[in-house]
């Protein structure tokens, strides 16, 4: 599903070259549940953004679903993101002025899905995530757990093959965090590839496959 071949990513900060990722070789199969752990600055977010096609590698080759996506232009990248990738963020990233239903609808709107089909999909998602009676609420009228549920519903609205979650429980209390994680884990049962970035070993330990990163390199892999 995901195949990284000697992928590096470096940034120029001032007149200094900073390497965030160093020769990463990584293979992730469809339906895998992978956690990426490591201290802050170890490059785990950069790796996630790269996999999510929000960023481009400085060198190396990235293949997604068999196709080379290393050098796509903006429109092509956006199309892949729209069709194959879902994002869940630590700070939810809901649009504050839109209702829960419309936030969930956003990826469908951007992809130009017809209104009638959108309505059906959004209603099903609201139902699935127990948000039906919150459909017309704005994000500031929702609890943290509800907000992250809206974000997960939004991330899955286009039926992506890969779900990328960056510290999805970072802004939630323990109980709500567990609830959100179990929602994400349920998705892996539907053959969605889940990649979870966290610095919480307890959370990362739940994944079938765990990557540990330090200084832009994968230093160890464990499978459970």
């Amino acid at each position: 599903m995901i195949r990284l071949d000697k992928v590096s990513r470096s940034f120029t900060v001032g007149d200094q070259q900073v390497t965030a990722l160093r020769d990463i070789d990584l293979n992730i199969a469809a339906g895998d549940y992978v956690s990426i752990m490591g201290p802050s600055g170890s490059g785990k977010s950069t790796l996630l953004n790269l996999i999510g096609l929000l960023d481009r590698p400085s060198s190396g080759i990235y293949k997604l679903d068999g196709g080379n996506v290393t050098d796509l232009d903006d429109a092509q990248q956006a199309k892949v993101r729209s069709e194959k990738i879902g994002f869940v963020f630590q700070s939810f990233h809901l649009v504050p002025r839109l209702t829960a239903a419309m936030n969930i609808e956003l990826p469908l709107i951007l992809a130009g899905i017809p209104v009638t089909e959108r309505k059906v999909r959004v209603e099903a998602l609201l139902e699935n995530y127990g948000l039906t009676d919150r459909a017309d609420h704005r994000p500031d009228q929702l609890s943290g757990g509800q907000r992250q549920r809206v974000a997960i519903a939004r991330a899955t609205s286009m039926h992506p093959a890969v779900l990328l979650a960056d510290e999805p429980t970072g802004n939630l209390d323990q109980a709500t965090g567990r609830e959100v994680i179990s929602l994400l884990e349920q998705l892996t049962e539907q053959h969605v590839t889940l990649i979870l970035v966290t610095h919480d070993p307890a959370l990362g330990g739940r994944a079938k496959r765990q990557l540990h990163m330090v200084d832009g390199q994968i230093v160890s892999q464990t499978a459970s």
Partner: protein
Amino acid sequence: MLFPDLIRLTASSFLAYRMRSLLTGSGIAIGITAVILLTSIGEGLHQFVLSEFSQFGTNLIAIQPGKTQTQGGNVGIFGSSRPLSIEDAQALRHLPNIEHVNPSMQGNAEVRANGKTRRTTVYGAGHDFTKTFTLNVQSGSFLPDDDPTQARAFVVLGSKVRQELYAGQNPLGSYLSVGGQRYRVVGVMEPKGQILGFDMDDTVFIPAARALELFNRPGLMEIQVNYQAGADLDGVVRAITALLKERHGREDFTLIPQEKALEVLGSVLDVITFAVGALGGISLLVGGVGILTIMTMAVSERTAEIGLLRALGAREKQVLMLFLGEAILLSALGGLAGLLLGIGIAQGLHALIPALPVHTPWLFAVLAEFVAISIGLAAGVLPARRAARLDPVEALRTE
């Protein structure tokens, strides 16, 4: 992204920042109001002046003595132009396409009747005066078709003169003294009002030959010619010029076709309307700067949202369209409000001061709205492009 969704999304941010949107939109609204109000007054004035000039019909040619052009020095006896005579006017009647000819002479004299005296305009005219200028006689008839050089001493009264001298009486058949000479009243004109400062009602009309005599003038002030509608103006002008040249030996007269004069006047008034509109345009420019400011702020405030949209699969172009759409929506709504306000104020002014003519042509209204939208587009391009080109990773990181 479907078009209705673009509208829905841009409208949502418009509604989320109501106060700010209202203030920014009002910048454009004030500009459009100014443009519409000023051009409405300009255009109203335009139409008013043109209708004043063309109420006698546009098929008129005025012939005046003397050639209006500068030539060499004094050439003695040959330099003086011959006056236009009543015979000249008579001769013009026989030209093709000419419908009516009126010799005219104007002056000021004392009229007396019923023991009352009034100083009024005395207008020397021919039998065809009313037909030349499409005027109507209220009672009696206009001056009879006498031999113009030997015309009888008849007079036609303007309605105001009649009112002043013959209040409540029938003036027809009575005698009136004009500059000390006795005239018999044969008709009264319909009230006409003032035309460019000349009160048609405070006037008495006598035969042109008698007016020349009264004011002791050698020639007419003007001959007015009314040609057939649809006739070739240049041909008519050529024919008149040829005839008068033959009679005078050279071109010592000037032809002023009403149509040409109206064209010149129209173009002058157009320039005035345009200049006044451009003045209002300056406030539009200020409104545009307001939109630019607010959109720049919106982009920096909503950086995280832009990053999110990109993560959800938005292309650069879609982000561009969303922000451009907001700028255009702001200016289009502002423009619409300004349009309504401008037309409303113009009509209100007209209701308060009926003498002030206003007219808002549809074309101006459409053009103004188009200008408003263009300003929104121009002001939105820079911030929208900045939004589209943000690095999604950086954008997502901002809170």
